């Protein structure tokens, strides 16, 4: 904890002592289990029995399993559509909020509302609002717009629409804040010079705002995917992946393998796939951070 005058050696020791308590839980509860799950994926592990090495058998079974394929494509489809929705609404909100005004803070606090809501409460709210017979959404659709009512429990496409709607609602405030922060940082002069050159609002949006908020959109998108791949609660509480795997995700399949039939080995193989997907997306962000941290100083 000394400053400049301390000898190098003791400074290193002190800084290590300060950071190690923070690294400890990460190593114990994430890194070691992560390594352990690689080993578990090549073994047959059942609680209370000695485990047995089976090589790549779980992976081979997984690749041949139709349910896995379904869950995999559902995860991809779900992630793309919900992230697209989150970023779209986040960007839209950021554009609408970008010109400063008096009630700004109040508006932001209303946009932030879904951020406080847990998945289960979100499901309670939206299930009631989407109720086919008495729900307020069907009332609006049928009475004011003359559209057919949503029977979302019966049709898989509509079930997915509800899952994605929930997800977009829960997550778009996050995308909004990231993009908004970048949007309000754009200097007014850039807009003014565009207007002097004869640009209209739409052209200014496309040629001034969008290029400058692209990095923020990238960050929102990457984090969106990282959090979409891991999503379990929304689908589990709403449908448990059913009926007949029609809303199965990798996460719900993993849960069933591990905690309903206690096939820890097979569950670990799914876990490895989920991890790979996550780091495939995160790699771009991590590479940028790595460059910023290690190469910019040189």
């Amino acid at each position: 904890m000394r400053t400049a005058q301390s000898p190098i050696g003791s400074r290193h020791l002190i800084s290590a002592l300060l950071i190690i308590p923070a690294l400890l839980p990460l190593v114990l509860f994430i890194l070691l289990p992560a390594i352990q799950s690689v080993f578990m994926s090549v073994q047959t592990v059942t609680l209370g029995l000695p485990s047995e090495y089976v090589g790549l058998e779980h992976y081979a079974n997984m690749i041949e399993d139709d349910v896995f394929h379904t869950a995999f494509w559902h995860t991809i489809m779900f992630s793309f559509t919900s992230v697209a929705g989150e970023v779209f609404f986040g960007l839209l909100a950021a554009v609408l909020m970008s010109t400063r005004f008096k009630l700004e803070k109040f508006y932001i606090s209303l946009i932030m509302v879904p951020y406080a809501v847990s998945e289960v409460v979100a499901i309670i709210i939206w299930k009631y609002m989407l109720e086919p017979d008495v729900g307020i959404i069907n009332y609006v659709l049928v009475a004011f717009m003359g559209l057919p009512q949503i029977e979302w429990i019966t049709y898989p496409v509509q079930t997915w629409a509800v899952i994605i709607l929930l997800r977009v609602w829960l997550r778009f405030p996050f995308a909004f804040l990231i993009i908004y922060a970048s949007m309000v940082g754009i200097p007014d002069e850039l807009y003014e010079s565009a207007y002097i050159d004869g640009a209209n609002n739409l052209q200014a949006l496309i040629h001034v705002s969008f290029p400058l908020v692209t990095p923020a959109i990238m960050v929102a998108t990457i984090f969106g995917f990282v959090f979409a791949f891991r999503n379990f609660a929304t689908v589990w509480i709403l449908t448990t992946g059913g009926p007949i795997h029609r809303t199965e995700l990798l996460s719900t399949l993993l849960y069933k393998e591990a905690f309903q039939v206690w096939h820890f080995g097979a569950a670990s193989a799914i876990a490895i796939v989920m991890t790979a997907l996550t780091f495939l997306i995160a790699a771009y962000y991590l590479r940028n951070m790595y460059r910023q941290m290690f190469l910019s100083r040189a």
Partner: protein
Amino acid sequence: MFQKTPSYRIIRPVGLILLLLFAAFPVFFLFMSAFKTPNEIFRFPPTFVFRPTLENFGKVFTDWSLFMVGMKNSAIIAFGASLLTILIAAPAGYALSRHQNRFLDTSAFFMLAIRMYPPIVVTVPLYPVLAQIGLMDTHWILVLLYCTFFVSLSTWLMKTYMDEVPVELEEAASIDGASAFQRVTKIIIPLSAHGLAATAIFVTIFAWKEYTFAYIFTGTRVQTTPIVLHQMLSPVTGVSFGPLFAAATMQLLPILVFIWLVQSYLVKGMKTGAVKG
């Protein structure tokens, strides 16, 4: 920024109103429905003018004592996880802010990368271990796990806040004969209090709404509110919506008020967290 043309004057307010409706109306509707009688809840078309009643809240207290226990558990876990995270992230953030060496750089990058790891994936290898050492179904396991998944963000947050405290202040204090302990308690902690607050806020919000870990690692002894709410949503006897709405309101309202009170910290923290950590 944008020119106030006639179309802008129409599109912007209309867009904003639709956006705010989308974001906040569902929650407003939940709060309102919590004060309706069962008949009123299922009236079609939905009503907005009615005689409010506290009946549903009463039923939560009498029929769902589990829910009140859940609130207590959630509060204990949120508080414990916030405290633990602050205790370990603040020194780490200080180290990253004031010192520079290979080990720290590597640690900082390790923190960024490891936080991407999907939580549900670690549940599989952790389950047998936790069962063996008796950490299942305790407050401790959720405190530890929530802390683990927020320690990276929190350390980076603390670093950012501490970067804003000039080193010269510490050096001056040191020249005036202040001990290391005094420098920490008199300078670092007071000046980075906002960082500590931001950390506690993020952990609290997360702990309050977390479902997956709570669902897998707790049983009957330590249930948090999201788990109890899920049970209220799917009982074999059929859902009673009045008490369910009342309970959801009790779960959501305190954290919502909290978020509004601390909004500025949250906004700054999210920017820091997403861009840097």
